């Protein structure tokens, strides 16, 4: 018998000025979702079911940038993406551009298990979700007031903000950081001039 283990994350690049109560809330959500995985593993659940169940929990809680609480596009809408991979046989499934599927990670699992493909996106992914009877909701379900406010900040700074992203040693909030770095006409990505990114 091997020994089970689990690791989870809720995103990297945290605002060093994140208020204490928000840090405590983040830890509560992480601890709750981690416990879901630990309880399942103690009960002998397979790894694939555990990662799906834990990520569903994280998607459903609005604290982190996924599912409900997702970052917003420049149009103020939500476009989500997810992937899942089974180390056993290295099978995988992924979706992008979904905007009504309540738990994108479960759609990625269905792409892996029930479709001949590894990746479905946008209309095709939405259609497949309905074919498979997955729960779908209105796009407004995913939008939180906090994120509407953050989008406003991002637009004022004319930048594409990575949630909570603060450069190492940076003390300003990312929107201020982006604003101060913002060239008059240069695009800013993640608070840094787009020029530092190699062309995709």
């Amino acid at each position, binding site marked *: 018998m091997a020994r089970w283990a689990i690791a989870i994350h809720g995103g990297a690049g945290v605002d060093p000025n994140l208020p204490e109560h928000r840090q405590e809330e983040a830890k509560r959500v992480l601890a709750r979702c981690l416990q879901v995985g630990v309880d399942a593993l103690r009960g002998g659940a*397979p790894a694939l079911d555990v990662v799906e169940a834990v990520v569903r929990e994280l998607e459903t809680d609005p604290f982190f940038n996924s599912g409900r609480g997702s*970052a917003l596009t420049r149009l103020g809408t939500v476009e989500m993406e997810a992937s899942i991979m089974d180390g056993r046989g290295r099978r995988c499934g992924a979706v992008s551009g979904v905007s009504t599927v309540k738990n994108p990670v479960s759609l990625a699992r269905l792409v892996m298990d029930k479709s001949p493909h590894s990746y479905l996106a946008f209309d095709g992914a939405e259609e497949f979700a309905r074919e498979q009877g997955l729960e779908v909701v209105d796009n407004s379900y995913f939008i939180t007031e906090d994120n509407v406010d953050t989008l406003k900040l991002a637009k004022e700074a004319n930048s594409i903000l990575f949630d909570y992203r603060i450069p190492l040693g940076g003390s300003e909030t990312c929107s201020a950081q982006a604003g101060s770095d913002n060239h008059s006409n240069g695009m800013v990505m993640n608070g840094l001039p787009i020029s530092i990114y190699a062309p995709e």
Partner: protein
Amino acid sequence: TVGCAVVDSNGFTAAATSTGGLMNKMTGRIGDSPLIGSGTYACDVCAVSCTGEGEAIIRSTLARDVAAVMEYRGAGLQEAVDYCVKERLDEGFAGLIAVSGTGEVAYGFNCTGMFRGCATEDGFMEVGIWE
């Protein structure tokens, strides 16, 4: 972005990642999270889920690189994680969590903090944000 990496009591691994992407992003933008080998990877030796600047994670095929360093260089899990976060991201900022097929957990990040948690069968359990 959120993610999970697991090895079960049969030694089988899995990983999953899910995200809303970047605030104020262009519609149609794809990040690293759905890309197998960049944001998510699982095989016999480990399972990995990444988060951070998608463009940097994509270019470095970060999740697959952790497994490759273990497979081809015989590195341990934490050693592979540290190497990839330190050497493979160029100027990008990112973090990742990982488990090995033998029941270890590891994480690494080169930015300010990462929301994370981990637990192992022998009772270890940790939730953290900062270094």
